[in-house]
């Protein structure tokens, strides 16, 4: 039996997420769309916290909501025409977009509701049945080489990030 606080928290966060994500894609001003995206990302991070993954939630805020959103804002500001502060965002192919997104949504929801793989485990039970994931566990997992340990992907991602840094600089430099 989940506590009432959990349920209320869930509802608030879920409603935030859905409403802000819809507004992010329908807003007429790009900076507002970026802001709504920020709220969506923060909501997601709250869900991560609620599910018991503290580290992941922290990373979500720090990297996604913090780093990436700053990147977006800079990009928006860099690609604006001067004196064009409120050029509205236009959309085309709205009918097509609505139809396919609604169709996709309906299909996925149908799949969800009829999928036999989902079990009815409640959140409290799930959190209680699993062991608490500490930073120590995460650290060991990221620097180990045996099964279920992620040293190689860790190093690979670091190489990838290096490549992206260099690539970004090369692509965007002024000739």
């Amino acid at each position: 039996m989940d506590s009432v606080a959990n349920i209320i928290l869930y509802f608030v966060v879920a409603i935030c997420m859905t409403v802000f994500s819809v507004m992010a894609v329908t807003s007429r001003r790009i900076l507002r769309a970026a802001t709504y995206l920020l709220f969506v990302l923060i909501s997601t991070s709250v869900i991560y916290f609620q599910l018991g993954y503290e580290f992941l939630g922290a990373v979500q805020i720090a990297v996604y909501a913090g780093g990436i959103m700053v990147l977006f804002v800079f990009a928006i500001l860099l690609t604006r025409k001067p004196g064009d502060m409120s050029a509205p965002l236009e959309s085309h192919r709205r009918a097509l977009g609505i139809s396919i997104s609604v169709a996709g949504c309906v299909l996925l929801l149908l799949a969800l509701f009829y999928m036999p793989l989902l079990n009815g485990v409640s959140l409290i039970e799930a959190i209680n049945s699993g062991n608490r994931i500490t930073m120590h566990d995460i650290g060991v997992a990221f620097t180990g080489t045996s099964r279920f340990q992620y040293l190689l992907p860790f190093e690979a991602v670091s190489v990838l990030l290096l490549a992206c840094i260099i690539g970004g600089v090369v692509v965007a430099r002024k000739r």
Partner: protein
Amino acid sequence: MDITLPILILALPFTMFLILGIGGVKMSRKLAGVLGICGNGALLAMAYTVAFTYFFSGNPEFIADGIRQQVQLFDVTWLAFTERMVVNIGFLLDPISAMMLIVITTISFMVHLYSWGYMEHEPGFQRYYAFLSLFTFSMLGLVVATNIFQMYIFWELVGVSSYLLIGFFYKLPSAVSASKKAFIVTRFADLFMLIGILVLSYFVAQTPADGPLGGASAFNFLMLNSESSNVLASTIGATFLGGSVLTWAMILIFVGGMGKSAMMPLHIWLPDAMEGPTPVSALIHAATMVVAGVYLVARFFPLYLIVPDSLTFITVVGAITAFYAAVVACCQIDIKRILAFSTISQIAFMMVSLGVARPELHDGLGYMASMFHLFTHAMFKALLFLGAGALIHAVHSNNYTEMGGMRKYMPITHWTFLIGCLAIAGIFPLSGFWSKDEMLSAMYANNWIWGAWMTMVAGLTAFYMFRMYFRVFWWEENPHYKEHRPHDAPWQMSLPLIFLAIVSIFSGFIPFGEFVTWNREPYHIHIEMQVAVTSIVVALIAIAFAGWLYLKKNDKPARMKAALPGLWTAANRRFYWDEIYMFVTHKIIFNGICKAIAWFDRHIIDGTMDALAAMTQFFSVRIKGMQNGSVQTYVLWYFFGAVLLAVITWICLL
């Protein structure tokens, strides 16, 4: 017997072919000629050694109780289709193959020596000697074959050599056409032969391996010909259109022989094959390749005896061909064509002689006589061809109207040619008389009709040969000789002529029956007086008639021609056989059948492919709008695809 010599007999000419063919461009003419002749001389010595060992050594391996044995000196598996149908390569030594060894190598050596003089100034000298070696190799492989498939392989090789040699003057369009014609006609006949071989071996291979046919290859001659083989029993169940399978198989095999030996209606290639150099005509189209068909029938003779209907077929074909060729030869102007038709006629003689042979009629005399005539004919026909070559070399023309009164200018050629003509006419005591007499005896023994018919043909033979002789060497001197005096041939050309003339005179006295008979037991030849006298009288009458017409220049031949112009023209044009073939191929096959097939190919088969391609192009143009450069469209399509996959998965999971 040690197998070194037999292997060398096959390997040496092939090696000479490779050396002269590949290295010929670098060699001088003299070197190529010397190599060719020495190689062939060594081959001659080896073949004579093998043959004489076979005939005279008295070795019990070769002759037991007076019966000559058939010995397989080696027989190695080359290609195995199934357990029974195995193609071997081997060396079979028996009376007819030993005899053919002697014939082939002798004539080949004479031709090699002669060509040194004849082809002196021709380009491609080395290539010529290479092809001669190839031909010798193929022919030797053919006669010593242990099984029918090996014989077929070398049969085709002989055809190839013939093609290469007829088309030797490849810049001449007529030579190129002639070589193609020869190859295509013989190849067409070989199709039937292959069908016959396959039919025969199929039925033979059906019999169990431990039955009377033993476990030997279904193609092997010794196995097929042996009395215990009981081939008839294995094929007796099957019939086709009223004739037994064995009859059909043997007749089909004979059709292959018809092509190679130029029997009617597959004779059309031989007169055209005279486009090749004259020594080639002597070797291939007189003495050796064209007798391959006769040799084939002789090889299979025990099988042919089982089904006498096939022998009747052979007799009829041979008789008609002999008469036809003799009539046509009477009206030809080109001396090589006369000799070509004479060859056709003489080979038909040999076929008829084989066809009438039966064990009960003088112990299979026809077989022995046919082989005897093969031997003597090879010698004197080669002599005649080489003599014709000397004449052509002197006047640079094939046409006998350019010649006349040659006896004063070319004595050696004159006397040897006369000996050849007397031999072919069958005058005592030259070799032709003895062999022709035996053949006629065999024919009379079978049925007097064959005897009478072939005696008439023999008379025609004497007539046209002496027509040519008198016209060339007597008649009247050609006025052109004042500017360009014809002279006798150089020694390389005269020596073979003299040798062959000596052989033609004396080879009749060989007691051939001691060596070659159908059941390999010795047979003592005796002359039947009435047959001999009849044939000599007929020949002398024909020679006298020819002399009366052609000895001195007169207008009697011209008046005879003017009296029957249609007949003369028809005979000159070989009774329009070439025109018939052209009509059938062009009008019926090309225009009728091939045009329809070509239309089908172009419009339906190609049309289907073109339609498929056009359809692909149409659709691709229509859907290329899918790639309009906009990322959003791509994602749309991607999403559609993913949704589709999900729906399909869902349906499958239901």
